[in-house]
């Protein structure tokens, strides 16, 4: 970790103010992303993975608010910027790709105009230059016959092609950081592979740091460099993707990996994690995973485990060691 991180999130705490007092949705989330690196963020619904992305983009809506910690982009603190300054940053230095490509495009504007508008907002270029650039982007993301497609409306594109347009839109101001929130969930498997390899290629070519939020461990395993596994608003385990998937240390990660059916062979039963993730208002004291964990002891029920500073860390009092993986 010699290179300075592009994005540095420290002890991020996000709460929702409710009638019964604040609910903590993110608690002490810390991670870095270096330029050109893809960090996968994986977890079950409600684990806080999308919320982490939303907090970085600065789109947390009330009653949610950032209650602690800091977010630095290339050394500049961005979590306390005024709304107007954040707006200038979004799109220019942070690009976002969301799950549903149909709702992230304006249905009444031609895709070319949407890209041109974004370029003109953020970069000091003429309209002609912006259009040439938009055309170039559409070609880069692999849209066939881009010179005619640039004047088509979003409904004339298929799901996979729309997601390519959204990616072109996210890249149009050459951002340093891309937040991709479930970019392939709405797509078919054969299209999903096209989109993930596109994101990977563009990330390498442009040296942009990418935060890839998904619930699909397979996508992470094939796309990300490092992965953060989230559980109940905290990072349970973080490390290089091959380490975390092959030799998980947190019992939750191990359970998650074992519960994915394999395509290589047919097993009689799947290993399952009993129970469900706790609700925000009912997160148990100590380690939030302790009620579902076979290794839990008294220590786990009282003291919340923390992440260390190594490359591969698990927030667990009794992490799995080499011997556990056979």
């Amino acid at each position, binding site marked *: 970790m010699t290179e300075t991180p592009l994005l540095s999130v420290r002890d991020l705490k996000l709460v929702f103010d409710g009638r019964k007092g604040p609910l903590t949705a993110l608690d002490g989330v810390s991670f870095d992303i270096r330029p050109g690196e893809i960090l996968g963020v994986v977890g079950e619904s409600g684990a806080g993975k999308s919320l982490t992305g939303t907090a970085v983009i600065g789109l947390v809506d009330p009653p949610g608010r950032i209650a602690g910690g800091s977010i630095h982009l290339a050394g500049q603190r961005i979590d306390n910027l005024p709304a107007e300054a954040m707006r200038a940053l979004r799109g220019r230095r942070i690009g976002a790709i969301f799950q549903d490509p149909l709702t992230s495009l304006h249905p009444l504007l031609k895709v070319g105009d949407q890209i041109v508008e974004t370029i003109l907002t953020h970069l000091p270029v003429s309209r002609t230059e912006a259009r040439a650039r938009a055309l170039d982007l559409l070609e880069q993301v692999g849209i066939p016959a881009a010179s005619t497609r640039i004047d088509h409306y979003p409904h004339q594109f298929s799901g996979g092609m729309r997601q390519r347009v959204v990616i072109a839109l996210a890249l149009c101001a050459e951002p340093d950081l891309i937040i991709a929130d479930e970019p392939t969930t709405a797509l*078919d*498997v054969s299209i999903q592979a096209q989109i993930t390899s596109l994101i990977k290629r563009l990330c390498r070519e442009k040296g942009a740091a990418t935060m890839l939020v998904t619930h699909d461990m*397979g*996508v992470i395993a*094939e796309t990300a460099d490092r992965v953060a596994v989230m559980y109940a608003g905290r990072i349970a385990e973080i490390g290089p993707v091959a380490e975390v998937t092959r030799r998980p240390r947190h019992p939750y990660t191990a359970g998650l990996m074992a519960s*994915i059916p394999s*395509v*290589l062979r*047919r097993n009689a039963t799947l290993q399952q994690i009993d129970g*469900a993730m706790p609700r925000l208002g009912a997160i148990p004291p100590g380690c939030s995973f302790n009620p579902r964990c076979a290794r839990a002891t008294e220590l786990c029920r009282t003291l919340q485990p923390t992440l260390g500073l190594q490359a591969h860390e698990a927030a667990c009092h009794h992490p799995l060691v080499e011997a556990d993986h056979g």
Partner: protein
Amino acid sequence: MAEANPILIVENASCRFDVSGPWLQRIATGAPRRELKAVNQVSFSVPRGATFSIVGESGCGKTTLARMIVGLQPPTAGSVRFGEIRRADGTVGPPRVQMIFQDPYASLNPRWRVGDIVAEPIRELKLRATEAETAARVAELLVTVGLSAADADRYPHAFSGGQRQRISIARALATEADVLVCDEPTSALDVSVQAQILNLMVRLQKKLDLTYILISHNLSVVRHMSDQLAIMYLGRIVEIGDADTIFNGPLHPYTRLLLDTIPDVESPNRARAPLSGEVPSPINPPPGCAFHPRCPMAEAACSRTVPELMPRPRRSVACLVLENSEGAADAQISRSTPSA
């Protein structure tokens, strides 16, 4: 496939939808009638107690086929028939068919108590004489699917996604169903919960001798559950047969494309070169083999002739190239089974 005693027989079933514009507009503009062939001459049979999976991408007709099996959509040609079965209580007759839907948040009435949701089919079909017996049956069903009898008094909103899917299964079993058509039963669930539901489905199948028709696009789920498998592309079955045989050595180029593109945690293929192209519109499918514009093996004949399903050992494949170059193709595409 000549099973001794099939529980479900689908013969040359087709389902076409008229998607042409309003008649006045059609006359004014001279536009022709347009037809969407959602399911096109599909045939298969399923033996009792087996899991038959239907796999394909969006728009390939798998949900229409499921709706035809449960009778929500009559086939426009061909037939969907059921075999006679002998139940545990000695009665003989056609099987009862029920459906489990994808979204457990949308398929349960939010204003009904869980007890009433599960009891509705029992009351409707008059399977129990008294309310007390019905309540006892509901309690028994809830315990069977891994909930508690006391949950009958709660409303659906008090349950998580996985628990709601358990309620859906209990409701389907309340009719003493023999065949469950499961349309993407776990795609709305998280993986750890998905494992719970899949394990429950396997356990119930053994216990109650259930037959599953599983519709899914998630190939790892299909791999885990299926005995038999049909891969659909634009309304037609392109490969059908024994699930292990197909997974260990897919023959049709589309099946191979599908199996190659699933991201796998155990052996991630980080340097993948994905196949380009997308599923064409089923309203105006390409002539000949519908897959030929995306197919790496396509020959001139593929754009002219529609391939028929040709029987092979333990499966059938619809591909002209395979038919024409039997021996060479076999050697080239046999996929090695990784040792576990």
